[in-house]
């Protein structure tokens, strides 16, 4: 059971890494506009199609 404290601390550190990533992303504006990226991701496909023509 002595491995438990180590495991708990490791798991919290890993989770803390994800939390930091989330905070960083929020500060950089990743969550400011949730609508336009959904539209933007469609572009590449159509682009290629028109080039083949």
């Amino acid at each position, binding site marked *: *059971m002595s491995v*438990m*404290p180590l495991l*708990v*601390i490791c798991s*919290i550190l890993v*989770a*803390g890494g994800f*939390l930091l990533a*989330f*905070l960083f992303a*929020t*500060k950089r*504006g990743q*969550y*400011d*506009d949730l*609508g*336009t990226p959904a*539209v*933007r991701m*469609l*572009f590449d496909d*159509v*682009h290629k*199609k*028109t080039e083949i023509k």
Partner: protein
Amino acid sequence: MRCTHCGEPCSDRSIGNETEIFCCTGCKSVYDILQQSGMCEYYAFDGASGVSQRGPARDRSVYDVLDDAATAARFVDYTSGPITRVRLTLPGMHCASCVWLLEQLHRFDQGIRSSRVDLMRKTVEVEFVNTRTGLKSIAIILSSLGYEPLLTSEGTEHDRDVERREATRKIYLRLGIAGFAAGNVMMISIARYVAGEDGMDYTLVSLFSVLSIALSIPVYFFSASPWLTSAVASLRRRVVNLDVPVALGITTLFVRSIIDIVSGGGEGFLDSFAGLVFFLLIGRLFQQKAFDAVSFDRTVRSFFPLSVRREHKGSESVVPIDTIRTGDLMIVRNGEVIPADSVLMSATGYVDYSFVTGESVPVECTSGTMIYAGGKVVGTAVRLTATRPVSQSYLASLWERTASRTPRSSYMKLSDRFGLWFTAGTMVVAFVGAAFWLPNVAVAVNVFTAVLIIACPCALTLAAPITLGTAMGVLGRFGMYIKNIGVLLELKNANTVVFDKTGTLTSTYHDVVYDGTPLTQEEQEAVEAVASHSAHPVSQSIARKMQPSSTADVMVEDVGRGVRGRSNGHEIVIGSTAYLSEILGDSAIANGVGTAVAIDGVLMGRFVMRSHVRKDVPGMVKALRASSLRARLVTGDTDRDEIMLQDVFAKDEMQFRASPSEKVAAVENMRNNGATVLMVGDGLNDVSAMAAADVSIAVTDETSTLAPASDLVMPAARLADLPGLLRYTHELTWVISTALWFTMAYNVVGVSLALAGILTPVITAIMMPVSSLLVVGMSVVGARLFARRFA
């Protein structure tokens, strides 16, 4: 036949070639630009999705004002050395093609580094090298692509945008930290609950204690701070709002848990604490999201243009409207808004005052007439001398009077009253419970804090914001924008609906009715050809009514009176009855009404302008009556439409020719007689009556028009949904109160456990999230379920 660019139906093939047809030269020029740049894949995303360029051609000189550094600065996000970033609002943006094209701006101007679109807010952020290009050239590029930037004197609501963005980000940050802590503390706590009192060795218990305290500290001081600061602020104002018992509950949970853990008295309630804050923040996020979705609440400044043409010592220049001084000569063209109160210098002019007075037919003004700011010039350009600076216009003062009224919100009042009641009740129960256990101080303190913890009105604070916030979001999808969530509760209380006719019950598009000898196809074509040459709004309406066709020659326009011309071999005279009686030499004609038309010297008949009742109005008013609401009509219009509306309203329910102040008086009179008034108007002209009413709805044909003082904006096409909307507000209240009763029952159970001294951390850890989840679920599902009628 549809326009290749904008997809609107075209009447003929005169513009374009075999494969490409355009409805107007504007659309063709945008298409040409795209073709030259090899960017026709624009049409590949959403078909012919361009912005229609019909209407008067825009004059590039309006963008000259952007060369003025102070004016341009309103749009600038930041400048760092040679790089500048600006944000512009483009109302025309609407689809995936728009996003694609507007993010390719660097292909049109080497100076542009990048551009980024926000489709929801209809803004584009352009980053450019300020030594190679400027805001003015960017505005011209956008305009040539058919996306005219919104250049109002308020800038792009820039500061408010930034403020909102920051607020939303902050909620996400708080939510992230609270969620992280809640998850991890719960993981630790579950292990302890399962292991029981003696199932875990001492090192592990100490580690878990340290970890859960460490995780909870940022939750209390950062994530929960909105409630703590709001509670402190409200107590300073000597008001007890609903945030007070919440803050009390949170603080008790946090402090008691820490004491329990440090003194070794137990495992504490930190898992419940972090979970509670997490749920509270979810409620906040709902509220903020709903608030974000609405941005119609603008000021009078956003209605005025950024600039106006000023004639100074014989030369014409475009200047910011704030620089207009008394005595300056302005030139205002067709479709432009007059920025300052002024006197007409041109011989005649037509001004559409529908925003200010509500009268929907343009007014004919002659030289020397006083013209008020806010009117829109129709037809030929006019020259005006300003009599007052922009900020002192009649319209601006009207606005200020309305804006200075304190916002009324029964939602806030409800929260305040409830907060006091709730806090007092909880305190009484807690004290009585503690007193009961008294000689045993330890148990008494436990019971006291347990009551404060379990009675924390977390679910209460969630029910209303989440239900109303969800409803706001759903309604926004159908074009109905609500100023704040409290409006829905105000709407529920309304028992009298007052309509303003102009634009609300009748369509603003005028119908011309012809009365006289029927015209042959050939004659109609001739009339159209002559009428279309005159800029007079009535002539334009007549021209739209007739068959489009041939060309006319030998035109004589007697501005403001009539027009004469030859077409298809016919001599056509169209004009006021006085004008025709003069030309035909028949004084009898002068007695009639409307616009007369004569062909080859013979009076054929008259055109009468008529607006018509929106077709769903009678049914809508009937439905209102069915839900025992009173309907009234108070309008500034003349009673010429009384006959048209008499099927809808009884005679004593209608009031015509009401001036803005009479409208206010009528509304106040109803309120004094105990009515709760919902005013339905069409925006600016009703501004004071709307402010006088308990709650107001602005009905518009385009949501971009400005609607001050109104609590809700809805598109005209949705007017038939008004009774449904009012019923919906009742259902929302039902959802909220059901959730409240439910949590009350829940609290009674919880408080009983607390009083019995058996509210253990495990029970709390189960009870609190379950009740929060149930309330969130009930609120969201309820608000959505009842909203299905709008689909």
